[in-house]
Each structure stands twice: as C-alpha cells, then as structure tokens.
C-alpha cells in the first residue's frame, strides 16, 4: 500500500466535500473565497494531494467528481460575490440629476428655412417640383410678360428697385412662372421660392427684402376650386389641421379671376382678436387663375390649358407660425432669437 493509496482511504471524502462546500458558501468576500479555494482545491489541499496519488479508476472518478463540483461551487460563489459587490456599488453611487449634462452643441435652422421646408414638402407631396430663378430681372419678365399695365403702381421707382431702365430686383417670384413656361411644356406643377425686393422702409411689419413662395399649376381643366383645395392643404401644413381658408376678390395683372386667400386666425380661432384685426381672418398673399394673356405671352394655348398661381410671404408664415412680433428679428442674426428655434 503506497502513501497515496493510504491518503485516499484515510479521508472521509463525503465529509471533506460537505465541509468544503460549507466553507465556500460561507465565504463573504473574494479573499475569503480564495482562502477556502486554496484550502480545499489548492495544490496543497488534501484533495489535490490525493488526486496526484490516484491509481485506480474508481477513486479517480470519485475525487475528480468532488473537484469538479467544488470548482463549480467556487465559480458560482465568485459570480455571486461580484453581483453582490456591484449591487452594493450601484446602491451607493448616485448623481445630482438636475446638474447640466455634457456641453454638446446642436445648432438651429432659421425659422424661414423651417417654414420653407414645410412648404417644399407639402408641395412635393402634391407632386410639384421646386424651382428658383434669378433675382435680378428685366422689366420684360418682371412686368411686361406678366401683363402689368403701363400705369401699374408697382412699376414706379417708388415701389421697385431699379438698376437702370431695364433691370430691377424682382418684386415677386412670378417671373419664374414665365421662365418655366418658356422652358417647359404643360402640364406644369411647380413652386418657386426665393428672395424678392420692394422699396419699403424697414419697420416692424415690412422689410425691403423678403422671401416668397409661389406656386404654378398648368394643366387641362384646372379650376379656382383646385386653387382653393391646394391652398387649404398648404395652410393646414403650415398652421395646423383646424385652419380654414377663404377667398376674397382682388386684382393682379397676371391672374383672372384674382383672389386673396385668407386663413382663419389661430390666435382667436376665427372669433376676432388684435392679431387678425377683429376679422377672424389673416391675409396670406395673392392668387388666381392664370390670365390667358400670360399664356399668350409665352405661346401656350389658353383654350387648351388653364392654370392657377399663388404667392405668399415666408416671413409672414414664419411670424404667424412662431408668433414672432417683428419682422426685423428674422434679419438681425441675433442668437438670442435664433437659438429659440
């Protein structure tokens, strides 16, 4: 009988395993656990020593079984202790959630751009293309081809910025209608967005430079009712689904019939307040059925094709949508204003 054989036999392995399991389970910290592991599973443990001396299959199975179970118990206990420690830490750690976060910068799209995109997206949804044209125009495109009478007051240098007798800053985006009609055969659905210029002094409500969006639809069988439906769609996209639209008669050289669209006031809901001058309605711009003369001016047959056109100011839309009281705030580049949007 060798020493090893004696060792195997000399130990009550059932008791050893019970004792070891108990010690491992009782370990309450990683060092304690490590101590128990060394004692019962370490190189100098009775188990390790006995295993080194095992010669027969039966003892080997017995001792290896004990070792595997104890090792599993160590791993389990380790995991458990780590969990408990983390639980502990999570219980102790906390922050003042009301302190500011890391300073990451996000910028701001200008309200005019935000409104421009709403307009663009609504018209894209209706199947329109977006188009912009030149801002420096000729009298021919800004007035003549749009059928402005020679005495129309917009032609006056008191209302319009002229560079010389034939060149001016466009007073509306309408010349782009002419450019499109000259370049493209109907049907046409387009909306033109850009800067326009009028000789107004700078006040809270007027700025000599502003933005317009102007739509043009030319097709067979276009009606005034189609204009009304289209504007309702766009006004609701801009100002909310409850808004109503109405038409008032007006006069523009390049449309007949001409109308001015109003949108119901969002502040008072149409009852009347200071914003809408107690009418319940807000003016939105100008519109109408394309005058046959305009079609003739660009060689489009007015008997076959009909259309509508409309133009509205982006600044006004931005002011109404965001309740901005003074148009100059849109042009000052003041971060106290811009950072609100």
């Amino acid at each position, binding site marked *: 009988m060798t020493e090893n054989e004696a060792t195997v036999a000399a130990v009550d392995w059932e008791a050893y395993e019970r004792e070891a399991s108990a010690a491992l389970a009782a370990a309450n910290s990683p060092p304690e656990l490590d101590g128990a592991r060394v004692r019962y599973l370490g190189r100098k443990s009775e188990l390790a020593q006995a295993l080194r001396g095992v010669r027969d299959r039966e003892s080997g199975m017995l001792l290896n079984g004990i070792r595997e179970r104890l090792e599993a118990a160590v791993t389990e206990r380790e995991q458990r202790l780590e969990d408990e420690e983390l639980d502990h830490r999570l219980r102790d750690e906390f922050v003042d959630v009301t302190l500011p976060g890391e300073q990451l910068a*996000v*910028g701001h799209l200008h309200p005019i751009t935000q409104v421009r995109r709403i307009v663009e997206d609504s018209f894209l949804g209706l*199947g329109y293309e977006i188009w912009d044209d030149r801002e420096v125009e000729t009298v021919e495109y800004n007035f003549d081809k749009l059928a402005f009478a020679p005495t129309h007051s917009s032609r006056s240098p008191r209302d319009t910025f002229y*560079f010389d007798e034939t060149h001016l800053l466009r007073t509306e985006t309408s010349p782009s209608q002419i450019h499109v009609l000259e370049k493209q055969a109907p049907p046409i659905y387009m909306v033109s967005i850009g800067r326009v210029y009028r000789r107004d002094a700078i006040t809270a409500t007027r700025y000599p430079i502003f933005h317009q969006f102007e739509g043009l639809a030319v097709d067979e069988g276009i009606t005034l009712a189609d204009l009304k*439906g289209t504007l309702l769609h766009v006004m609701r996209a801009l100002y909310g689904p409850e808004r109503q639209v109405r038409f*008032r008669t*007006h006069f523009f050289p390049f449309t007949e019939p001409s109308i001015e669209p109003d949108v119901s006031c969002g502040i008072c809901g149409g009852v009347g307040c200071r914003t809408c001058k107690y009418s319940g309605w807000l003016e939105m711009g100008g519109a109408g059925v394309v005058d046959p003369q305009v079609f003739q001016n660009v060689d489009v047959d007015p008997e076959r094709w009909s259309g509508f056109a409309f133009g509205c100011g982006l600044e006004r839309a931005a002011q109404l949508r965001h309740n901005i009281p003074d148009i100059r705030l849109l042009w000052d580049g003041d971060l106290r204003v*811009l950072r609100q949007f």
Partner: protein
Amino acid sequence: MRVPLSWLREYVPIEMPIDELTEKLSIATAEVEGLERIGVPDADGNLERFRVGRVLEAEKHPNADRLQLCRVDIGEGEPRQIVCGAWNFGPGATVAVALPGAVLPGGLELERRKVRGELSDGMILAEDEVELGPDHAGIMVLAEGPEPGTPLAEVLPLVEDVLVLEPTGNRPDLLAVYGIAREVAALQAVPLGPWPGSDPGPVPNRQVEVEVADFEGCPRYIGRLFENVRIGPSPLWLKARLLAAGMRPIANVVDITNYVMLALGNPLHAFDFDTLGGGRIVVRRARNDEKLRTLDGVERRLEPDDLLIADAERAIALAGIMGGEETEIGESTAKVLLEAANFEPFTIFRTSERLRLRTEGSNRWEKGVDPYLAAPAAELATQLLRDLAGADWTAQADVHAGLPERPVVCFRPERADEVIGLETPEHDQYMLLGRLGFDRDGGNVVVPTWRARDISREIDVVEEVARFRLEDVPFTLPLRRAMFGSLTREQRLRRRVEEALVGLGFAETYTPSLVADDETAWKLPEPIAVELTALRTSLLPSLVEAARRNVDAGAGRIALFEIARVYFSNGELPNERLHLAAIAQGGFARAKGVVETVYEALKAEPRFERGEHHLLHPGKTARTSAGVLGELNPRVLPGEWGAVELDLELLFSESREPVAYEDVITYPAVRQDLAFVVPEEIEAGELVDAAREAAGPELREVEIFDVYRGEQVGEGKKSIAFSVAFQSPERTLSDEDAAALREKIADALAKRFGAILRSA
C-alpha cells in the same frame, strides 16, 4: 375710399346687418379696412342731450365784453341761461344746443358751470364741435322749422358710420359712393337708385370756347359757364359729407367739385372765368420750358409730354392733377368755368410720377375714368351750383372725337362654371351681370361703360361671376397626370449641408443681400439707405457684422451660417451663385474642421491649399476648389474666429453622391504607422498627395496623427506621422505586399521632398 353710410343709403337701401354687408363687400368687391363711427358718441343716451334751441334773448355778458348771455328755449317750458362766445346770431335764431352731461366728439363732457360769475346751463354749438365742418368763427345757425327741444340728431347728421374701403387699381368705378352703391345693390339683389343729379332747366345755347388739341390725352372736355355765382360756405350737410369722406370743406364751388368727384368718381375743376385769357380753354401738351404755378404755390417746370389746360395765352392747369394759382376760385369770383373732362391714364400717370405730385384727381385718372361719366358729373355739379351758389348756367360745350362703343364680349355661362369649378345657374349669372350694368345680347354681353377698360374678354366676365360666388367655391385638387415631385440633387445636398452645420452647433441666419457699396457693377442708383446699396459678392462681411452684434449682445459660443445668393458681374445680368458662409469662435482649426465635415457630409474630399482673402489672417488662410476658409484677421474682429465661404454649386460637383459601395470586409486591411522627417516648409497635404499617387488605390486610408519638432529630428525639420491602411478589394495583402507599398511611398517622398522614413 371713405363712404359715409348716410350718403350710401341715398343711392341704395341697406337691407342686411352692417357687419354682414362689410364681410360680403370684403369678399366680392374690395377690401374693407373698417367701419368707423365718427361724430357725437351715441352711447348712454348721449344723443338725447343734443337739442334744437331757439334763442329768446341775447345780450352782452355783464362781466365780459366778448361773451353773450343768452336765454334759450329748448322745449322745457323754462328757458336755460347759456353763455356764448359767438356774435353771429341774435334773438330768434334757431341753434344747436348741448346740455350739461353731453359728451362731445373729442370726449369732453359738458358741465353746468359759472362763466365770469354767470351760470351757463349748456352750450350753443359751432360746427367743428360736432365734427360737421371746420368752422369755429361762429355758432351754427340752423334753418327755421324744427321746434325747440327737437333731438338735434333728427336735424343734423350728428353720428356717421363711415365704411373705409380699399378698391384695387382696376376699379376706379369704386372710388365713388355711387359705384360702391352699385355693388351693394348687386350683393343684396336690390335695385340701385337712379344717377344723382339732373340738368336744371333748359340747356343754354351759348357755347363755351373749348379747343382740344390732343384728343389722345383728353378724349372729352365738357365746359360749362356759370354766372352770378355767389361764393360762400357750403351747407352743413355737404360739409359734413366731405369731412366724413376725408376732405376738407373750403367754399361752395370747390366743395361741389369735390362732392361730385366723391359721389360719381369723375374729378372736376372750376376756373375763375374772368381770369382766363381770351375767355377760352385750350387742351394741349406743354411747350418747352413752359412754367405753371400750381395751387400748392409751387412753380412747376413743364415738359412736352405734360398735358395742360391753357387759355388763349398760357397754361392754367396741369390737366387732371392740379389747377393753377392764377385762375383759382376766390371769394370775389362771379363767373365759374366748370371743367368735367376725361383724361387718358398714362399721360396723367407719367406727369404725376415725374413731379411726384399725387392728388385725389390724378389717383382716379391714372386708373382710367369712364369718358361717359363726364356728363352725369357735369349735370350733378350744375344742379348743385344752381341750388347752393345761386349760379345761372349760361353757356356750355362738350368736345370729343367720338366716345368709345361699349365692348361686346362673348360669354358662356358654362365657361364660368368650368373656370370656377362650381355650377351657377345661367339665369343667376345673367341676373347678377345685369345688376352690375351688363346687358345680354345672345351669346355676348355688352359691358357697361364704367368697366370698359377692365373687361374686354370672356375671362374678365367670368371673374365678375366668380367674385360673387367665392364663399361657395369647393375645395378640390387638380387631377394630376404624370407629374411627380422630388427634390433635385442640389436641393437634397443643400439640406444635407444645412443639417451638417446644425449638427455642428451652428445657428442659421439670414442677412440682407444688399450691402454698402461693394465692388460690383450691380449698384442701385437710388437706394433707400446707404447700407442697402449694392448686391453683395460675398456673404462673409454680413456674417462678420452679425457675429459682432452677437458679441456686443454678450452671446457665447457664437457660430453662425448662411446660405444665400451672391451676385457677380457677368454681362447683361449678374451671375447669381448660391454660397455658404459660416463664422464661429475658434481659430483656423475650427474653420477647417467645419469644411472637412461639410465635405464629409457630402461624400466629397477637400484638397486644401494656401489661400488669401482680405478678411482673413494672411498666414492662416486656405482654399479648396469650392472656396476659402481661415482664421479672421484680428483687425476685422477681435478674438479668434474661423470663417468659411464656399460656392455650393462647385461644392456639390465634388460630391460622390450617390456613393458606390466598396468591399472592405472580404479582405482585411493592413494597418501601419509611418513617420517622415521633412524640411519645415513642406506641407503635410503635399506628402499625402504624393503618397496616394505613389501607392495607388491600395493605399485606402491615410491620416496624419502627429507632427513633431525637436532635437531628434534636427533644426528646420519636422516629423509627420501618418496612420495608413493598405487594402485590396480583390485579395488579402501579404506583409510583403504591404512592405512593397511602403517602399514605393518612401521612395517617392524621399525623391520629391527629401523625406526620411523614421519608423520601420
């Protein structure tokens, strides 16, 4: 146009609530700016405190030489004692009295009080105190008739509602009370009253001598001579109407010309006949260097395009715009030559524009007044001159070269339905057109003379129907065929740039495209302000100013961008380019980071070279093929600022959008760090370019991660460290392949720049 409702009611009954009428007028006729109530406040029984009184006694105030002490019967049995400062009346006069407690138009409340020791139990009114006239020289002496105690409002228009309308430029017929009445009649489907005024008595046989030398400028001239004219104040009702309509009463003859203009829309003029040289009227263009002193006292230098009214010798009026001083009606005028003419719009427009002289008259003429209107205007004026100035009509003339026929226009009611998108029964359409003065003639309509300029085509008649149906037009959408909307590539990429900058913390801003004198040919000869003179050729100066304002306002982390046009001289019309500009606190590196990110967002690769720009730091300025970037010259704005200006079209042309997929997964990359020692003046970008050229597409990435200067590399030299990735889409690169590539790079850099590879 201000329309007193009492005046309007003279021509048409108002059968609907006034709010409803104003709303309907707004929709179908002309914008209603408001309904103004003028005159005596009528709340809380205030009108009851204004009565007719009869003066029983009037004598000097015992304690004041300039005051009268009156006893006035106001129908109460016991007369009241009233102190009055006027002397234009005596016992027996019928006067207007306000009792204590009455509130006057200005808001003043009368009190019973002592004046110089005598009780004044009310006030005898002058016309200006109740806004019936401008006069305060004496009190109003009323016509006899009404009993003392009669409410004054039954005798005088103490309260007036005034409709304020803004007709569009194509509707000069609405610059007249009668024209508005016609619309009100059509809106309510009620008959319109007859034209006001008719010629009194027989038409005189004597002719006024009128010569029209220019029928183009003056298609019609009615001249009427009146004698025994008694100039004096107009009656209260007329003064009250003029005041309510916004004109100042002067004296009867001039007031009558204004009244007729407001009633019918045809401006009139009255000359003092005795001042006319040769007693004749000549309508002609001005001669070179001719001059005229107009009623406003200004001497006008005339040009041959100007249309004049002249006598046998000289100019006496600027036709349609303003009369001359020398022929003005005065207190002693006894003979009046009344002009009821018609002038061509463009002639009047051009002269009024050139002289910057706009009057009630020119405003109507330049919109085109109906030449037929001259006759009823002359008739109404004649009647009023006889009634109110005692004038005898003694001579007349009506000169024209034939008046235009009424336009006949083809009109199909079904066409109106097609254009409007709403059915209106044919009968209703013709009824409506009839109320507006159109006559049906088979498949045509005959246009009323007062709309002849505006309506010459079927579509114009369709509009007449449409404007009365606007509330009923349904909401539909076009039945589109084969039209699809989508953003163009440029529009899509512009949004991507905007998003990228917003992601970097930039706030978008808009600044004016007109700036103080820029180096451009596109300058306004007559700007509204110096700082809005020229079309800009660069956005950066505007952004620098915006940044400066924000600094002054105490803002932190300033970062602004703008996308807008700039305008370069380019022949007949400027070359308008869309630019992006950005400015931010932080120096050159910030600017460069912004440009790199924008390029990255667009899937483009920038190449930087040294550049220059007048606003930027000379040593810290770079350019790419799309524009310029750098650190602001501190002279421009104190502090460290990064600034960028790029041309978006050029930028977008470099975008690889849409990106083509590259296989970087199948065969792994070999990553290495390389450091080269080069002379100080060599720029890192040159090394990168040369490395790419030498190694070809298998050098997939090259990034600079360190620049080192120090003893180890020697004076005048620097070490630039690159991290590179070699990769092939076709095979796995071996260590030998990588070594060969590194060799190629090292050789090329050594040859071109004397670069020495430091690490192996």
